[in-house]
């Protein structure tokens, strides 16, 4: 896989839900040379248009730019920051992790009661929300208030690195990895001089992790004939997980959802995506266990209903500072979406 440097920058960019501009600005710089037009809407969704040979139909691709994060909710006399979570984060991945807070990008560490001082039978309980706070080094409210304010956004600070032979580890790969695939796709289409049979709209959306997503707004404005959400999915593939609870496997290609907790996907679109991969010899897999949900739910019920597909990178440890993605899956997903877009049957079957 090329361009690991871009994925690293996307992963490390600061973008908790509701505060995505650092991410969308990074993406805007990358896509502007390749897109026919680019705009940012009132919510901060970044949208690029890549014109087709014909403009009678339109396909929307969407990936969200936000990540799970935190918001400062109280500054204590001791200088410690209380916080609320933005998105679903399990408290087991918080203690001792480094975070970045506010516009000043102040470093902090998530802290709680030292474990030696906890009763023995409670030492394996994840700390409760009220027992967690962010330590930025300040020893008083006055010191802290010089650096951060109530309402400041925060996110994990996490080293991006290659893991083993084929994988990468970093924060926010949900869904920066999906956004990365969209950027690479646009670059590839442009560089090869390929124009699809329809207009392509690429949306880098906001606030997915909060459940009140910005993706529906883009769909309402653009009114596409169909949409494909490029996402990540939890996979439950750790050793010891029984077969019936496994969602997907890393290295097996993009995961096509037939059903998740927020959408039932149109059977014909699912079959077409699988068929397309098969015809072009691209690895793909179908989601085997019902979990999660994504922007497909918001796009699908926009206007008079939009046919929507979800393709996801099989990802370990979602919503933690250490998401793990397989580079081979990123390549497979890129090839898969590229084939769907360039396949002569797509316009007739999907749009």
């Amino acid at each position, binding site marked *: 896989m090329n361009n690991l440097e871009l994925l690293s920058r996307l992963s490390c960019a600061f973008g908790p839900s509701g505060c995505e501009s650092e991410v969308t600005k990074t993406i805007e710089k990358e896509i502007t040379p390749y897109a026919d037009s680019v705009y940012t809407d009132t919510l901060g969704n970044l949208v690029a248009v890549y014109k087709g040979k014909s403009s009678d139909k339109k396909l929307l691709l969407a990936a969200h730019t936000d990540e799970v994060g935190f918001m400062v909710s109280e500054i204590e006399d001791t200088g410690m920051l209380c916080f609320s979570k933005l998105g679903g984060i399990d408290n087991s991945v918080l203690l001792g992790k480094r975070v970045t807070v506010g516009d000043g990008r102040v470093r902090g560490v998530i802290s*709680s009661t030292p474990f030696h001082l906890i009763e023995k039978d409670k030492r394996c309980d994840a700390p409760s929300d009220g027992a967690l706070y962010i330590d930025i*080094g300040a020893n008083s409210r006055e010191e802290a208030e010089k650096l951060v304010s109530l309402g400041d956004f925060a996110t994990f600070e996490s080293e991006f690195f290659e893991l083993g032979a084929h994988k990468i*580890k970093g924060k926010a790969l949900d869904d920066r990895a999906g956004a990365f695939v969209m950027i690479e796709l646009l670059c590839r289409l442009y560089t090869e001089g390929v124009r699809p049979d329809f207009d392509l709209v690429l949306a880098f959306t906001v606030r997915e992790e909060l459940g009140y997503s910005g993706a529906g707004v883009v769909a309402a404005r653009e009114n596409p004939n169909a949409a494909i959400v490029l996402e990540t999915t939890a996979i439950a593939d750790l050793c010891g997980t029984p077969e019936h609870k496994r969602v997907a496997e890393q290295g097996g290609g993009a995961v096509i959802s037939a059903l998740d907790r927020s959408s039932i996907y149109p059977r014909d679109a699912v079959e077409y995506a699988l068929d397309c991969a098969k015809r072009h010899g691209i690895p793909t897999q179908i989601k085997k266990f019902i979990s999660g949900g994504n922007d497909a739910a918001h796009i699908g019920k926009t206007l008079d209903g939009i046919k929507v597909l979800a393709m996801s990178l099989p990802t370990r440890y979602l919503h933690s500072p250490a998401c793990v993605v397989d580079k081979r899956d990123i390549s497979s997903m890129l090839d898969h979406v590229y084939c769907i877009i360039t396949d002569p049957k797509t316009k007739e079957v999907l749009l």
Partner: protein
Amino acid sequence: MTVEREILEKLLKIPTVSGHESEYAPKIKDALSVYFDEISIDGVGNVAVFKKSKNTNAKKLLIDAHIDQIGFLVSKTEEDGFLRVASIGGIDARTLPSSDVLVCSDAPFFAVVSSTPPHLSDSDSKLAIASEILIDTGFSSDELKSRVRIGDAVVFAGLPADLACGAICSPALDNKLCAAAALAALYEAECEYDTYVLLSVREESGGFVGARVGIAEIKPDMAIVCDVNFARAYGAQNRESIERGKGPSVSISALTDRVLTNDIISLAKQKEILLQTVVEASDLGSNANIAAITAEGVRTAAISLPITNMHSTSECASLSDLCDMKRLLAEIMGGKI
């Protein structure tokens, strides 16, 4: 950069998990050889740094700071590129999921502790203890077996980083922070005593093995045990914690020498060095528990530095406390007690 910070960063670069003394003790010695001439390694791997008194027939002062850190030893390579580990020292299960680790095999590499995302978890399940966790290496099973041997050390990854207001965070500040304070003090002090800084091994792994052996070998007239202590935090009572940024603390205990302890308090006052006190009646949670009863008996005091998140991936401490501890120890070495 101050000498204590420079030494601290050098110490933090060397993984020091118990059992691997024969690898790490020579590395510690090398790292310190630019500052000191007399460094020795004993049979269990303790590194003793010595500076002679300017007087002849001087008494012997020993400053103990354990140099080992909590960590893991690889116990098994699993299918799909996962490692199983055994814990060395009191690992906090609450800090494990999704932490970065360094696998210290012949060619060291980064890996990550697995976690369960909220999409797949039962909300009230107990966290896995260290022996139950899976470490994800990203390698295939065959490649992993060729890279890793059973018994290889694993430590929390993460470089020291600055926080605001002169604080820093890093894994293994317990107890390299105090080791750095003691070494910097020795480096700067005009020693009135024949002074040893004992970087003792195997404190975290239980039994105070290194300190027992090291103190008995040196037979000091006086020992000061330096270790980290709990900084005030959510859920930590005032009586069992000290404040960060207010200097080191001296422990008041039935296991230490009260006269020596009071002398240290007076000295700090006289030299205007911030010093707190904490009562640790019958358990100091450190080598100070056994220092006094080593060999033929040693006058012992215990001084500590406050850190938050003890035994986590990011322990946090104050550089001003580190400096205050260095100053206090340098005064003691200079014979002001």
